[in-house]
């Protein structure tokens, strides 16, 4: 009873929002989530358990699959860090400076969203393979990008960059420059202004952006597949193993790998979200 009244109170509370149609939109939200997200996920999970738990565990614990998980997650994490660093710089430049061609750069940021991933993968491979425009200068120094894990990280950071920029940019634009001016007038150095004011305020958004970039990278197939080299145990990503299993008509094994990959990614996303939440609270306390 108590719970019910609490729920009613919550609905009551939400009802007082200025936007009408709460019940309708909540119903629609559930319907939409069920059809587009929950049902397919449930189908994958049931499919993966069709052969029983033992078979599920066997499918995801062979050395080759484990190596693929390691390669994928490590590359995705690294790529999200790279995307976070460079994404922050780009967002900073776009938010704070006015320069000729700013609008063009701003529009270019979204290109990785729109570009078919296979196109991105093929162009990156052409550029960075040992005979490519960039690769031919790296090759004599023993730096190999295409067909190594470096290539995987490169492709993943390419697709992840816009997530970081688009998360951080609005926050940087919102920051009141008066705060920085006040800090400077009180004798804070540039570094102190950055560390004490800008970083804490923009960090939650940066973590959100990095988490999105990680999620995208972990599930990425199209662009990575061309540059990865796809050698088992070394440069084979989990998504390729799913395709490989399908090619062997092993639907159960394919779904098992997909489910394990989802679970691993979920853990990483959850930790990043918790971090973001804590950072956000800290910022709230300060301001």
């Amino acid at each position, binding site marked *: 009873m108590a719970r019910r009244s609490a729920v009613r109170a919550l609905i009551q509370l939400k009802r007082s929002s200025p936007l009408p149609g709460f019940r309708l939109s909540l119903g629609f939200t559930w319907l939409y989530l069920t059809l587009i997200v929950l049902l397919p996920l449930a189908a994958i999970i049931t499919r993966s358990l069709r052969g029983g738990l033992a078979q599920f565990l066997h499918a995801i614990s062979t050395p080759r699959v484990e190596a693929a998980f390691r390669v994928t997650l490590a590359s995705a994490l690294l790529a999200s860090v790279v995307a976070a660093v460079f994404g922050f710089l780009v967002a900073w430049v776009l938010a704070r400076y006015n320069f000729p061609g700013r609008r063009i750069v701003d529009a270019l940021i979204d290109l990785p969203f729109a570009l078919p991933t296979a196109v991105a993968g093929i162009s990156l491979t052409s550029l960075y393979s040992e005979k490519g425009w960039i690769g031919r200068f790296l090759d004599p120094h023993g730096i190999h990008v295409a067909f190594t894990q470096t290539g995987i990280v490169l492709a993943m950071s390419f697709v992840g960059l816009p997530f970081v920029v688009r998360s951080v940019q609005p926050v940087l634009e919102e920051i009141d420059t008066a705060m920085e001016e006040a800090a400077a007038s009180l004798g804070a150095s540039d570094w102190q202004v950055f560390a004490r004011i800008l970083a804490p305020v923009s960090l939650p958004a940066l973590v959100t952006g990095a988490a999105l970039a990680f999620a995208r990278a972990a599930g990425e197939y199209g662009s990575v597949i061309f540059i990865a080299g796809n050698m088992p145990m070394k440069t084979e990503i989990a998504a390729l193993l799913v395709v490989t299993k399908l*090619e*062997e008509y092993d639907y159960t094994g394919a779904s098992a790998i997909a489910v394990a990959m989802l679970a691993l990614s979920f853990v990483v996303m959850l930790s990043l979200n918790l971090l973001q939440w804590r950072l956000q609270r800290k910022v709230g306390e300060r301001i």
Partner: protein
Amino acid sequence: MTNIARRISISLAFVFAFLAIGLPLAAQTTLLNVSYDPTREFYEEYNQLFAKHWNATTGQDVVINQSHGGSGKQARAVIDGLEADVVTLALAYDIDAIADSGLIDQNWQSKLPNNSTPFTSTIVFLVRAGNPKGIHDWNDLIKPGVQVITPNPKTSGGARWNYLAAWGYALRKSGNNEAGARDFMKKLFANVPVLDTGARGSTVTFTQRGIGDVLIAWETDARLSQQENPGEYEIVVPSATIVAETPVAVVDKVAQKHGTEKIARAYLEYLYSPEAQELAAKYYYRPQLKSVAQKHASDFPKINAFTVQQGCGGWRNAQAKHFADGGTFDQIFEKK
């Protein structure tokens, strides 16, 4: 009229219009041929040839639609409900998989001549002009410093042919000693810098990106690469290779449902006619018909080739032994 009502009536008008156009078409027979990647150009021309032949013998018009993709992917699409009347795939195992789902009779391979294989291909090497690394046989591929390009046998039908050709050679060389053959394969794949997911991908890696010293390829793909870039590549025929049988079958259950059994069968049988065999030779497939094969003998280098049956005891065995989970291909990479 409200906006929505207007939209609905416009869409309905379109639907009726399409039905009106569609009805006369329904009187005409259509066939769907689900095939693998490199046959696109061949079947485009063959479909016209067959349509003309069918019209001349029966007076009926037939329209043939074709679908292309990786052989395994295409087989899966048919199993999952793509209504193909006939399948023409890269290897028998993929048609076996459709047969296992019940759509094709289990004895499909005995229903047409030559194991239901109207023409064959083989596996050869493509090397750069002048053959700078001196590659003449499989043995040269395992030398240190030679880069070999071949796709991933787990995802590519062509790559499985490459793998079995190499395995067959290695087995002979080591006097039927499997450990020796495995050792050879391990050395071979240590020289492979990238495993593309399909045969066309590997060809692009070798020709467009300039990576590798030798490409293990379908004879058809090697010949086409040579034709498109004259003077840049040479073909090397190894001392032993494999007869790549690319079989065809009627998808019985679908054809029964569509009422196209007769024409689907005729479509495949006509592949064995002299006209179709000529066409196959034009696209660098090796014709089965003696007269056509003799006529084009100079186009196709002599090969010393074994079949999957001879080399590995059939596709089902080959698949289980080499490409299934934990098979010899996995062992190459997992057991260090």
